[in-house]
């Protein structure tokens, strides 16, 4: 299982770095897509809560390290989201791209709400419009990424808890 966790950590490094370097001309209302959430949704829905939580820890650490942000709030939102999505995995349709898009958009909004408690924004309305734009863009980007990541995960051994 070591290679599974290592693969998920490497994906977290690549996707979070990609998110930070997302080109300005491809942003929606100044916002890049939340690629960390796309990874959480894919891992959570297809691999279960434990690997979801591990991906939450990895993405939270990467987002905090590259953005020099306090880790506490990021861990709460990312590990929480990864675990919750893993628990949801058996109840909703984990293999449907459209479901992944909807879940990604919803998760972005939920996680931004949690992070709002830890890091209040200077202008609330801007936070609101930014969150909505990010949710829409993340949902759109989730379609190809989810399909690609799901194909990649099919080569990995099945999750330990199953």
């Amino acid at each position, binding site marked *: 299982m070591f290679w599974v966790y290592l693969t998920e950590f490497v994906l977290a490094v690549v996707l979070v770095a990609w998110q*930070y370097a997302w080109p300005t001309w491809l942003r929606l209302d100044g916002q890049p897509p939340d690629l960390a959430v796309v990874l959480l949704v894919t891992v959570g829905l297809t691999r279960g809560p434990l690997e979801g939580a591990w991906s939450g820890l990895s993405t939270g650490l*990467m987002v905090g390290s590259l953005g020099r942000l306090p880790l506490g709030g990021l861990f709460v939102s990312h590990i929480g989201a990864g675990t919750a999505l893993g628990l949801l995995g058996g109840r909703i349709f984990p293999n449907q791209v459209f479901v992944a898009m909807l879940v990604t958009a919803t998760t972005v909004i939920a996680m931004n709400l949690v992070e709002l408690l830890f890091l209040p924004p*200077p202008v609330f309305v*801007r936070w609101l419009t930014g969150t909505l734009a990010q949710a829409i863009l993340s949902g759109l980007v989730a379609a190809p990424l989810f399909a690609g990541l799901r194909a990649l995960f099919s080569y990995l051994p099945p999750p330990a808890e199953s």
Partner: protein
Amino acid sequence: MLLDARRRTGLSPLLFLVTLAMVLTMWQHLAGDSKRVSLPEYVCQMLGYPVMSVVTRVNEALHDTALSVFRAQSLAAENRRLRQKCKQLENETILLTEHFRENKAFREKLGLELDQEVKDIPARVIGRAPDSQRCRITIQALESRELSKGDIVREAGGLVGRVIEVMNGNAAQVLLIVDAQHGLGARDQRSRVVGIVRPVQHWRGGWPDRLQMEKLRRRADILTGDVIITSGEDGIYPRSIPVGVVEAVATSPAYAHTVVATIRPFVDFERLDYVWVVPTP
């Protein structure tokens, strides 16, 4: 790995992850108290920056290729216009160099302190804060010189911001002058009126694209079209770095006896690719 951890620690894997998260958070706090970066964060930065650098290069290549394909005609026209502008600027540079030498000679004769000449460090923008709340960029020096906290960052057009954190020698976080927490001392280049420049907050997404100069008396001599430069009186920025141009002047909504000037920055913060880092003495 996690199951092994459970066997060793006697904790469930999820509890182990939560404990690990708490340890990492405390490590960050302890390192932050001594103004350092914790080891796990440092490792993550060392892993993340090369990926950010590669992604930025690929983005630039794709963008340039797309531009050259779809806008070939307008690019040719722009090229002609810029060549003409370049010639004009070369002439102006010769004139300015003459004035600079004259000024230097006068300052020497008057016994005034001379500005130290420092070599700027070119840097590439490799990352942007992924939200509109924090106006920060991550830069990586293109030379093997080390960046320092407090270094000034500028673009050909004007002032960009200052380095607030050096990550690993040649990469750093830059606080932009359009960040909500930022303020700087500025001067009207024509009338020499001084004031404080802050960003104008708006409700739209994206970073603010306008600044405002505050603390100006009602009869302050400031006009639309005036160029605003740094005053050097804030102790942070050196004087005479261009900031922007005055777009409008209005009575302050808070104090009737003061006016506020709206400034359009010379720098397009959404399209920063390369910057210059001016080392602080």
